[in-house]
């Protein structure tokens, strides 16, 4: 007979709960799986097949972990979103902009290449090099607290998303203020989009991708 406790723990591992409570939950789930297994065995199903059928009772361990986490924390949907997305996202944003500022103070200023009177390209190599780590931090944090893949993606790429939102909000204002035809501002818009949204976004996503998959402990063989 499989070691159901070990099996349940391996798949469910990573609940952010008090260790005693986590142990109690693992034990209870293991007992349920064991009862299911014995039921199948009593009906004449072979041990291996009975194990597989018992495990079918939990098609998605990551989802079960999330549901248990939510139930245990007694949260409503708003709190879940704050914990899974807004909080890690805001920390990612603060780290990202804070580091850019820090590099500036340390003399590692961004390189600026003027294209015309209004448009310029800018990049900071040290900043771009640390962005994957910051993206990974956001996505890992979101996954750790039970975030779904899209929440992890957004939490990790939050600084780039924030810049895109800022651009959408501020560009029309700039257009009115400058009172110039849109076509003359297009190079500036494109340069900002590439240097402040796309390239940092890609760097952040490099760190995010490994955390879009569920924890490997969920796919441990029986």
């Amino acid at each position: 007979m499989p070691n159901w406790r070990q099996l349940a723990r391996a798949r469910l591992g990573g609940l952010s709960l008090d260790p005693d409570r986590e142990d109690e939950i693992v034990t209870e789930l293991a007992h349920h799986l064991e009862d299911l297994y014995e039921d199948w065995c009593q009906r004449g199903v072979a041990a291996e097949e009975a194990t597989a059928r018992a495990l079918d009772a939990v098609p998605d361990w990551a989802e079960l972990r999330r549901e248990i986490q939510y139930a245990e924390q007694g949260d409503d949907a708003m709190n879940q979103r704050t914990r899974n997305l807004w909080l890690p996202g805001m920390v990612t944003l603060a780290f990202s902009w804070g580091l850019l500022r820090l590099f500036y103070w340390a003399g590692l200023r961004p390189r600026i290449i003027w294209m015309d009177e209004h448009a310029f390209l800018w990049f900071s190599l040290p900043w771009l090099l640390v962005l994957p780590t910051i993206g990974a931090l956001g996505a890992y944090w979101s996954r750790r607290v039970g975030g779904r893949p899209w929440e992890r993606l957004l939490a990790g790429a939050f600084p780039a998303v924030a810049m895109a939102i800022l651009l959408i909000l501020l560009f029309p204002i700039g257009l009115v203020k400058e009172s110039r035809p849109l076509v003359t501002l297009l190079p500036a818009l494109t340069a900002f989009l590439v240097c402040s949204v796309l390239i940092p976004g890609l760097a952040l996503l490099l760190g995010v991708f490994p955390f879009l998959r569920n924890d490997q402990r969920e796919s441990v063989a029986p």
Partner: protein
Amino acid sequence: MVAVSAEIKRGSAELAILALLAEQPLYGYEIAKRIERETHGALRFTVASLYPTLYRLEKRGWVKASWQASRSGRRRRYYRLTPEGKKQLVPLRAQWRLFFRALDRLAGVARA
């Protein structure tokens, strides 16, 4: 096939569990088996749907759990209804009765 909203599923699951526990304390596996048997398989609880619901009810103080020896002699975590749970079951039953009556009036669900 018509998808049942998560809120309806969640609400009906809570009612089913509370109604069963009003009769006697049961452990998780027994609850799942009893619900399946008594609804002739129409309602089925998987591990993924049963335990989060139980933990939610426990968190609200509607059920209380304790480890006890089962009939087989093994220790199982038995759930029993608390006085607060009993109090909640009354309006919950009334709400669901009202809900089904309303659906019946509207769409003839009972005769469908």
